[in-house]
């Protein structure tokens, strides 16, 4: 299948981002950018600061230094609510689903920012509240269909196997109709078949829904196959940035990452 996706302008860029926790440096002077509609991977050995970077992007962590340019706006940091509001959604490395809720409800939570009803109307389940609930249910169902999880629609997520939980979490993120999707090790702990499925979903999301994807992954092979550009971090520093081929042949990367058996 040939790719006809168009990669657009820079939507998000980081300049000299530094982050530390109580004196421990997690990120040092990181700069890179993300272009519209691309699949951007952040890779690196364990403890390289990949997750921290993702947390900076959607405002969970606030960097001490540096600047973020998001859709032309210059800012010191992001905050979680605003970034959600402006179309950044994410998944987590250690699945962070709402365990007591069903798959459907989990995905519905992803739609909360699109809901306008207030709690009084909700309580009455009347008029707009009811209409809205049904309308969003339809959207949620489309995502369920897209991710092929129809058979577990009403199962509490706590009872699902790991691979499916990952998929549901992706579903919850997709429910927000994000323009930028952050995926924190989407394929960690999966078997080959599950990985293939997840890859297909990621490509489909990127391709059909047009979302920009920033993903962290441990599995080099997969990343190289699906990403447009790759940033490599090591000990909180950027050591390479470029197309998969460039990165693969970069000596720093080979030393820091590929050379090390893991």
């Amino acid at each position: 299948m040939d790719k006809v996706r168009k990669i657009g302008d820079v939507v998000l860029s980081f300049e000299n981002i530094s982050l530390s926790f109580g004196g421990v440096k997690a990120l040092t002077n990181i700069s890179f950018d993300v272009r519209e509609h691309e699949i951007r991977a952040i890779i690196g050995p364990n403890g390289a600061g990949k997750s921290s970077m993702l947390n900076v992007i959607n405002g969970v962590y606030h960097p001490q230094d540096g600047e973020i340019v998001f859709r032309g706006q210059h800012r010191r940091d992001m905050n979680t609510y605003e970034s959600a509001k402006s179309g950044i959604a994410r998944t987590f490395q250690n699945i962070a689903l709402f365990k007591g809720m069903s798959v459907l409800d989990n995905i519905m939570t992803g739609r909360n920012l699109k809901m306008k009803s207030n709690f009084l109307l909700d309580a009455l389940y009347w008029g707009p509240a009811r209409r809205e609930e049904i309308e969003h249910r339809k959207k949620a169902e489309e995502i369920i269909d897209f991710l092929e999880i129809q058979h577990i629609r009403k199962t509490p997520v706590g009872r699902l196997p790991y691979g499916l939980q990952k998929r549901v979490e992706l579903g919850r993120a997709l429910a927000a109709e994000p323009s930028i999707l952050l995926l924190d090790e989407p394929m960690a702990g999966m078997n080959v078949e599950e990985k293939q499925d997840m890859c297909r979903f990621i490509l489909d999301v990127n391709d059909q829904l047009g979302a920009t994807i920033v993903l962290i992954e441990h599995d080099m092979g997969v990343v190289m196959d699906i990403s447009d550009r790759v940033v490599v971090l090591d000990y909180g520093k950027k050591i390479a940035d470029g197309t998969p081929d460039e990165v693969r042949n970069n000596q720093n990367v080979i030393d820091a990452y590929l050379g090390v058996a893991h």
Partner: protein
Amino acid sequence: MQFFFEVLIAGLLSGVMYSLVALGFVLIYKASGVFNFAQGSMVYFAALTAVGLHDKGLSLWLSVPLTMVVMVVLALLIEKIVLRPLVAQPEISLFMATIGLSFFIEGLAQAIWGANVRALDLGIEDVPLEWVLEKANMAISQFDLIAAGIATVLVATLALFFSRTKIGRALRAVADDHQAALSIGIPLQHIWGIVWSVAGFVALVAGLLWGSRNGVQFALTFVALKALPVLILGGFTSVPGAIVGGLIIGASEKLAEVFLGPYVGGGLEGWFPYVLALLFLLIRPEGLFGEKIIRRI
């Protein structure tokens, strides 16, 4: 001014008692991650058992050690029946379980000994110390002072026990990391049993001191409620926190009651420590000496 100090000292002296009870909490919290709401009931139970045995004709020298044995048995039973099955549960479930436990222990105490108020005479009179009265014209209760003395000794002993003995260090290991504690070969159950027994001992001492002053009655269970703000203030995991917190709460509560009370009709003791602790909490959620919690995702 004299009066202020009189109140302050009385407050600090009762604060030592709070520290003692709070220490019981800290002990258990550190070792098993349980906020033991039943600590107050244990105080009540211990005091009632001691005085009950005493009333049956046993001397205090016999009834108190006997009560201690009962407390150890109780501690072991609690560990086996309540804690062990709940080991992997969230903290909040354990907390609620101790609320249930407190009801159970209170019911048990009353079922065995009846609900009547019993007097306990330790042979210490609750009279002002004469020489202080003469020298500084302040009324400092002899009883309070002795009680505080006993409590101080106990607090100090426990603090040392924590930091110096092998078991104490083991306890800290458990508090830091259950897995690590297991790997150095200390059975978790043993540690819990010991900790709860020690907590039972603390409860017994506190019960005797308090009981002999106000009579052994159901109100003793409220001691636990008093200790709660102490813990919030001092931090759930800190021994010095419990001591300092107890003193602060004891002193401020008395001061508030005496100096603020008249304006609002009294009875501040019930809630003032809480509001104080709460305000403090908003500024420093981990308490004075507690460890900062970093949220990870």
